[in-house]
């Protein structure tokens, strides 16, 4: 394909539901009320009521087509390979959806008496136990709504622990420069000052720098936030020594569980010295994500932090029934409504029980195998940032390709034309022109091979027709967007007052 054959610039793909609205059109025919009608102003006296609410008016058929069209523009794991590093975009088994659609889960209310929702409470309790066993922790809170929320809770627990011991002066948290950006943000949100630690030439924590940073802040050290395997996809082989050094200084070890897919069933962070960690049910445990949630980022803790966990905890009572325990005097309080994103927990529970204790290790083993297969197959064309055995994802650096006028961004955009979701790019920040590929365990060798062929084809295009990359994507629903303009003039709202014609102009 030549650049000159390409379609024109972006145009409006789909009108909004407001734009297809016509006055008087309805989607449902309600039967006549068999009780007398009362004006709403009489039912809600003194409440300010809106006279006009411009809701769209469409038929059921139009509405169904509208959303089907919109969903067909989307790219998702049900449509194709999604090697977005650090996000664990594995297949979401449909049996999980069957589980959440059971009436005892889908049709209950958080205010129902406990005696009528025993099954749901048992799932919460069993999930706390299952995750504790998988993580090597003593207790788990299922409340956080996302990984970053889990980090925030984790740091709040560390703060509560130090405060309870009369050591609130501990105000420094060490975070690697390679960390997920949410790590320093979560610690800073809890009032901590961030102390950076570098990555060495192995791609691991620079031990000499870590020792120096601990020494500098020893008496005021609150903890260390570490992802293992780390953000370049490598296992921190000094982890036991690191934990010992932090504990000796009176700090606690926080584990960012974003990369737990490399360990599940094989190794337990609790055994590595982590005192508190979050895990993403929407990554490791196959709950759908990338569409706005709900996510779920449970937090596991060692016994020293258990008293501070948020309320309520699901408990099994002496009489064998299940309930929610609010009587926790040292608890930091509530971090989420009710007991967390319940149906996300049910999906993950179905997934864990499907594998069972004996087979969970197959997840991490196959995830690591697939990532290494791609690393080795691509290594002669795409330079690997740290050329050694990786865990569940591998990181490439395209800094040498700048001489062709091509950036990692251009490769990521071009892969869309081959029908794949792009890898993660420009993360971690310590790797220049970075592409991070995480295939997950749910992809077949045929899928991986086809992806390798596509990537090598793109590498060849870099030499023959780099403009093809710089102007990609060409055959996606939209062409390359002006990301800088979008960030500077962020405008996500559409109001019915705006003129339809203005947005439809090519």
């Amino acid at each position, binding site marked *: 394909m030549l650049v000159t054959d390409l379609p024109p610039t972006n145009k409006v793909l789909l009108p909004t539901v407001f734009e297809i609205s016509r006055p008087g059109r309805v989607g449902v025919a309600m039967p006549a009320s068999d009780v007398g009608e009362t004006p709403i102003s009489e039912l809600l006296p003194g409440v300010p009521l809106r006279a006009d609410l411009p809701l769209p008016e469409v038929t059921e058929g139009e509405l169904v087509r509208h959303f089907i069209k919109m969903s067909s523009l989307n790219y998702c794991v049900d449509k194709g390979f999604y090697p977005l590093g650090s996000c664990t975009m594995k297949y979401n088994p449909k049996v999980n959806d069957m589980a959440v659609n059971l009436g005892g889960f889908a049709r209950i209310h958080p205010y129902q008496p406990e005696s009528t929702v025993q099954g749901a409470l048992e799932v919460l309790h069993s999930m706390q136990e299952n995750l504790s066993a998988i993580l090597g922790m003593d207790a788990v809170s299922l409340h956080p709504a996302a990984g970053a929320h889990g980090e925030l809770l984790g740091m709040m627990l560390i703060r509560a622990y130090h405060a309870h011991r009369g050591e609130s002066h501990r105000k420094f948290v060490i975070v690697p420069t390679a960390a997920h*950006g949410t790590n320093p943000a979560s610690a800073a949100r809890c009032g901590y000052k961030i102390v950076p630690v570098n990555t060495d030439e192995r791609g691991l924590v620079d031990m000499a720098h870590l020792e120096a940073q601990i020494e500098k802040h020893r008496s005021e050290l609150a903890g260390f936030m570490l992802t293992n395997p780390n953000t370049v996809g490598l296992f921190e082989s000094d982890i036991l020594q690191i934990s010992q050094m932090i504990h000796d200084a009176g700090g606690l070890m926080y584990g960012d569980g974003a990369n737990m897919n490399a360990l599940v069933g094989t190794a337990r962070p609790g055994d590595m010295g982590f005192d508190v960690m979050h895990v993403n049910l929407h990554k490791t445990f196959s709950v759908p994500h990338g569409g706005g949630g709900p996510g779920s980022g449970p937090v596991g803790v060692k016994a020293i932090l258990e008293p501070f966990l948020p309320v309520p905890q699901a408990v099994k009572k002496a009489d064998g029934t299940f309930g929610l325990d609010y009587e926790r005097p040292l608890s930091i309080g509530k971090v989420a409504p009710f007991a967390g994103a319940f149906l996300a927990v049910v999906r993950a529970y179905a997934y864990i029980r499907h594998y069972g204790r004996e087979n969970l290790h197959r997840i991490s083993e196959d995830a690591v195998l697939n990532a290494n297969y791609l690393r080795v197959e691509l290594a002669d064309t795409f330079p690997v940032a740290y050329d050694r055995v990786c865990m569940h994802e591998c990181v490439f650096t395209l800094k040498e390709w700048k001489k062709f006028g091509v950036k990692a*961004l251009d490769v990521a955009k071009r892969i869309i034309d081959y029908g794949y979701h792009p890898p993660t790019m*420009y*993360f971690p*920040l310590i790797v*220049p022109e970075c592409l991070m590929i995480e295939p997950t365990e749910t992809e077949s060798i045929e899928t991986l091979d086809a992806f390798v062929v596509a990537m090598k084809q793109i590498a060849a295009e870099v030499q023959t027709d780099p403009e093809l990359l710089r102007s990609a994507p060409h055959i996606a629903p939209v062409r390359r967007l002006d*990301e*800088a303009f979008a*960030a*500077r003039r962020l405008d996500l709202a559409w109001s019915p007052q705006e003129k339809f014609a203005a947005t439809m102009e090519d």
Partner: protein
Amino acid sequence: MSTIPAELKYSKSHEWVRFDGEIATIGITDHAQEELGDVVYIELPEAGRMLSHDDIYGTVESVKAVSELYTPVSGEVIEVNDALSGAESVVNESPYESGWMIRVRVKDAAEMDDLLSADGYKSEIGE
């Protein structure tokens, strides 16, 4: 190859400094803006703030990432380039002229000697 004016001084964290008597004008290098990509937001300190060497004096956000700006020479901020607000692309287009960020009254002239020359910076970034 990025532009590295010979008359400026540089830090390893990709700031440039133009000395004019006791006044130092500070910005980010052409190499830095190239690595960052399109700049979309810049946060700068208020005039009057005292900065020590290596202090974070602001942040610059691009479509790729948020990066911190480090103080190359200690001193008091006497002027801030307010024109960048709403016109962030100036940092990409003119990093050494219109894209300057802050002016500082230098506290310790000896710190100038710790900065890199154009040649030193050039080898630092491998060009």
